[in-house]
Structures are given as C-alpha cells and as structure tokens.
C-alpha cells in the first residue's frame, strides 16, 4: 500500500481505478464501489482480490476497480465465484450483484452458495428495480410501486411480494455473516462500510458465506431527484427491508475493527 502522509485526509483508494463511472447522478453504486475499495485497501487485499461483476447497471464494475475482475452471466456470479475460490482458496473473491441478478434469475446460485458456506463475500445492491433495462419490476419492488412492468403499481395479488434476501439467507447454516445496511445518509454509509469490512473479515477468517445487502437508490427509474430518492429509501424501503444483523458468526461479533 502507498504510504499515507498524515495531512492527507481523503484520497482515491488504490483499489478504485481512475475511470469515470457511467452511473446516473445520485445513484449509490458509486458510494458502494468506494466502500468496497476502501475496505480492500485497509485490509491490504487488493493484490489477491478477484471480483465477479453481475449483469445489470454494475455490469461494468470491473472498469471502476483496480484489481482482477471477471464478468458473470446474469445471476450466476455466486457460481462463478465458487469456481474461482475453489481453485484459488488463498485469494479473496467477492461478487457485486443487483436485486434482479441475485434475487430473481440468480436465486438458485445465491441460495446454494450460502448453503455450501462458500467462502466468498457478496455485495448485494437492493434498489427495488431493474435499472439497466429501464425500470422494470424486481423481486424486491415494493407493494404498490410503479415500474414499467407494473405500470399501475405492484399488485401483490398477481405479482407477489418483495423478497427479503438477508432474512432468507441468514437461515442457512453455511452463512457466516449476513446483514442489511442502507446508503441513504452519512451515518448509514459509515455503518455500511463497517459491515463490508466484517464481511471480508469473515471470508479472510474462513468463516463461510458473507453478504452485505445495501439499500440503494435509483433516482432515474424511480423518477425522483437524488435527494428525494434518498428520502424514499429511508421512508419506504427501510420499513419493508429492516436494517440489521441477521447472522453474525461469534468470532466476527467479538471482532473490533
């Protein structure tokens, strides 16, 4: 790691590339990327980390990080990460996935990666919508929420209910660390970073599957301003997706970072 001079209080993490992202104004992907990069730097993991990008808005995540990356098929990131981790067990492997990727088309892969206690970390961006394809209903879309494929609002009678992934995965014995955090304000962003740290600590200690679900904004497809979108997370998403620690391995619970 680069030597940090005492008067530098803020700089680009070595684990982030210098490339300008394609994300929309107000989107919290950039915040999530930075938190992951800061944690990789702090734990000195960059040089042994392999990321697995999803299909969705973060399909180009590999362009924004400064470490090895592979690009998965839609939903298959946990399977791809499994393959990498099993042949390179000493490396750090994480997936970065959205809600359509992880909770819809990739439901089998995420469930079984967790059930196997696969020693990988999952960064799960839950913004309740399909961003890249232009705002369709996701498995996490809130009841009544208008999307392009639920034009009069998600009717739970015919379209079902949102899926709470952190709660579901925490029930599997292979899960070592499963929590939900939010990116809607500074306090929550700090908490999210600590959770990401603990998730990677879980992996480095070989304690099994770790996932941080991050409630995120999508101003473009929610048709809200960036600020309104952050308020939407706090007022509408948090009640449906309660923040909290759903599974924390005892060793991690004792850890002070």
């Amino acid at each position, binding site marked *: 790691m680069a030597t940090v001079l005492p008067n530098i209080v803020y700089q680009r993490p070595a684990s982030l*590339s210098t490339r300008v992202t394609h994300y929309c104004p107000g989107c919290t992907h950039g915040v999530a990327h930075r938190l992951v990069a800061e944690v990789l730097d702090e734990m000195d993991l*960059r*040089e*042994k*980390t*392999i990321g*697995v*990008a999803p299909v969705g808005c973060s*399909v180009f995540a*590999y*362009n924004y*990080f*400064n*470490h*090895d*990356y*592979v*690009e*998965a*098929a839609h939903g*298959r990131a946990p*399977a*791809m*990460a*499994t*393959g*990498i981790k*099993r*042949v*390179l067990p000493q*490396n*750090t492997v994480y997936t970065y996935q959205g809600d359509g990727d992880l909770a819809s088309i990739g439901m*089998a*892969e995420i*469930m*079984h990666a967790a059930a*196997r206690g696969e020693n990988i970390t999952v960064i799960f961006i839950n913004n309740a919508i399909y961003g890249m394809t232009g705002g369709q209903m996701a498995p996490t879309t809130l009841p009544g929420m208008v999307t392009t494929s639920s034009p009069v609002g998600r009717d739970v009678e015919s379209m079902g209910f949102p899926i709470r992934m952190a709660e579901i995965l925490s029930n599997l014995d292979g899960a070592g660390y499963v929590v939900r955090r939010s990116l809607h304000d500074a306090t929550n962003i700090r908490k999210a970073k600590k959770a990401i740290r603990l998730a990677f600590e879980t992996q480095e200690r070989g304690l099994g599957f770790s996932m941080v679900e991050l409630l995120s904004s999508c101003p473009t497809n929610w048709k809200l301003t960036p600020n309104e979108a952050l308020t939407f997370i706090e007022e509408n998403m948090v009640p449906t997706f309660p923040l909290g620690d759903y599974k924390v391995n005892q060793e991690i619970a004792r850890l002070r970072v």
Partner: protein
Amino acid sequence: MVKKLYKGNEAFAEAAVRAGCEGFFGYPITPSTEFLEYMAKRMPELGRAFVQAESEVAAINMVYGAACTGKRVMTASSSPGISLMMEGISYIAGTELPVVVINVMRGGPGLGNIAPSQGDYYQMVKGGGHGDYFPISLAPASVQEAVDSIALAFDLAEKYRSIVHVLVDGNIGQMMEPCEMPPMQDPSKRMMPDWAVSGAKDREPNILSSIYIDPVEEEVTNIRLLKRWLEVEKNEVRYKELFMDDAEIAIIAFGTAGRVSSTAVRQARDKGIKVGLFRPITLAPFPKDRIAEIAKQVKRILVVEMNTGMMLDDVNLYVQGRVPVEFYGRLGGVTPFPDEIYDEIIRLSENLDAPKPENPRLDWVNRLEKAIEGGK
C-alpha cells in the same frame, strides 16, 4: 504400461485427472453420472476442487469461473444437462477460455430417455449456445480413444483458447473395456497464462469478460474467434479409415455408429465387397477435404448415425452431389446392430450404379418403419 478394465465414464474421469484437471463441477445425470461420482472421490484425494453443483447451469458457471484462473477445469453431463449448460458455454466461448465439456449423449428431445444416442450432433458440433463461436468437437468411438481424447481436448482448448466438446454416447460411457491410462501430469508444473486472474500483484489488473458493448469491438472479437477457428480447421482435422484404399462404397459414421459399422464393413469385406469405413474423430473441424476426395473415389456413400441424419447434411455439403449419398440411422436411443448396416451395404453393392435416389432420408425412414413394424 498395462491395460486395465475400466467403465467408460470412470476411465474418462481418471484420464482427466491425469491430464491435470484441477477443478470438476457437475450435476448428476444418467448416463454420465459415474464421471461425477468418480471425481467426487478422486479430486479431494489429490487436493483438487470438486463441487456437486445445484444445477447444470451453476456447474458450468463454476467451470467458467475456475477457467478464468487458467487452470485445467471441466464438466461432464448428458444431453438435457448440456442444454442447460449452453448459456455458460457461450460465455466461455465469448471470454475465450479453455474448457473441456463431455457430453455422454442420450435419446431426446426433451427428457427423452437414458439410452445411447447421437442426437446432439447439431448442438455439439455447430455450437448450441448463442452468438458467433466455433466449438471444437471430438467424437471418440471406444473407451481407449475417449481416454486419449481427454488430454488432447485440454491441449486443444489451451492452444486455441477454445471450448472443446467431447461427444460420446451412453454406450461408450457405460461399457467396460480394457484401456491404458496416460501418465500422470503434474498440474503445478504448468505455466499459468498471462491472461488469467490470480490477483493483480505487480501487474495491471486482468479483466475477463464476454461483453463488448461497442459493436465494432465485438466485430473485432468475432473476427479473432473466426481466425482462430480457421487455424483449427487447417491444423486439427482427425479421422480414421478402414479399407478405404480400394473402396467403391464408403460408410461414413462417427462414434458408436462408426464402431458398429466397422464390424459390418469387415463382414462385407469377407464377402468380397469393396466397402470401406471413414470415421471422423473431429466432427468440428469436419474432415471436409478428405470427404471431397472420397466422393471422387467411391461410387456410393452410406452415412450411418444414431440420429435422423445430422452429419448427413455435412457430408452432402462436401460430396457436392458427385456420388449418391444414402442414409441409415437408428433413433431415440436405439443402437443399430452390425447386421442392419451389413444389409445396407449389401443393398448398396447390388445397386452400385443405380440412379441417385430422390430423397434418401425419406427412403430410409420408409425402410426403417417397415422394419420396426416387422418387429426387427
């Protein structure tokens, strides 16, 4: 080296281990399951990766991930499972990764049955996944030849950064035959390719992806894949011939159909019939030049397959109407007996100079339906 009696699937699995396979990811499916079972025991013994995945979709994506590390990795499955894997196979092709996939083919379409078939010819030889790519496809006809083709498959996969399919049918996967194993290769002695992901230590990050969002970049990639394929076509055609030197009738058949045909060809030769066997080992690249030569030499060709005549189309493409091409096949998991092919050879030899049949495939179906009604 001594020969040992091996069950086909177990022999292929041991051959893969000896070729330095460091990761196997699969899902149980008849008639390929013994491959997975053998690897479940053998890979952990050697400290290598084995995962029974939750589905073939997950299995091939585990292979995809593991292949990104540059290590030798593979999967084995059977027809319906291979269909599920086609997504991952296309991504592997698009990412230009060396991967070996074995298909122990069974009767289909759909759930079909678990009996031996060659009905996946199009899927395995032409691609099967979406997009512009070219798989290499090997079609061994015995346990020994399949064992030998495993190491070859890994070598070709690495040489051309390509997906390599090995097609066997349930017969070859399930039968026991004596065979000689290749020597054990030490995977730790292999040089890892410079494109592999391993952690960006003292180098720029490696990124492996099949996405080229700019169509021009995708076009450049498609051209790169095509040029590599043209090299494969130039260098890697493989086939076997039996009594072809003076043949007036050529049987063209691959895998089990080729092996059954060889018995019929020998039988007919004993009767003085000038018949030979041409057996492609690489279905892709297809031995098109040799087939064009054969078309100039013989008077009649009979294609024998355990499908409705899929390779028949390819043979016709290179025979170019020079001589009549007839067809004999059994379907749905039925393996032909040598006698059936012998009868066909006799029929052809008695009509050596007959005019070209208008629709040889229809003629064959009519003959086959009669035979089935007659309880054959």
